[in-house]
């Protein structure tokens, strides 16, 4: 995977608390001073939130379809 994608994966593992302790600390220290990393973490959190909204929308649609199938014959 190219380095940008690996960076994305690293921050994902950090945010989802899947990093071993030592690596987690490295990321935390980097985040103390690196503005670009801070911005990346923020954006990535917003990205996950956007995915959650979309997922919820899909789920609502599925539930609506189930309801129609079961109770609106």
């Amino acid at each position, binding site marked *: 995977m190219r380095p940008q*994608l690996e960076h994305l994966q690293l921050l994902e593992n950090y945010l989802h608390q899947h990093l071993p302790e030592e690596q987690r600390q490295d990321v935390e220290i980097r985040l103390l001073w690196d503005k670009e990393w801070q911005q*990346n973490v923020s954006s*990535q*959190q917003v990205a996950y*939130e956007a995915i959650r909204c979309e997922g919820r929308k*899909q789920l609502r649609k599925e539930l609506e379809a189930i309801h129609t199938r079961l*109770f609106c014959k």
Partner: protein
Amino acid sequence: MVFPLHKPVNTTSMYPTVSINKAEQLREALLTSREKTLEQIYAKTYPMVVHYIKQHGGNAEDAKDVLQEALILVYEKVMVDQLTLTSSITTYLMAICKNLWRTEYRKRSKFDSLDDYEVDQPTDETLADTPQQTKQLMQYMEALGQKCKDILVDFYYHNLRMEQISVKHQYRTIHSATVQKFKCLERLRKAVSSFSYNQFLN
């Protein structure tokens, strides 16, 4: 919103008793056959919710809204492993529905009796997005295109395994599906970087 007329039929008899009474089993069932599992739970719970809500000042449409919101809450809890089920899923859902309905009913009563309407504080048991934020976030998702959108939602919201995703979206290897997933996430992250996170938190 216009709701269809409900003609509840006795669907429970078509289904065996829901035996999914542990969070882990429920999670597994949702992962392997989400729609069937949800339908099974829905068929069993909806008549109970209708019964309760009709006795407490609401109608079948209210029951539908309340049950669907409760199911979304439970689904998300199950998917992030925060749920411990000590009772059956229907009992648990009924408890949430009763709470949601009480909140909704109070809100409506206040509307009827007060000129100044107090805004309710979001609690653990309500989905607390503001419509405007949600709308904006959805626009970023739309811009990604169907394929990226589906891969990201399947992986992060529905928690499908990469094996399932690579089969569903016809990738030859799990690795290439994983790379694609991160490419989609990268595009999304770039798109949302203009979106102020502080604004989003507030």
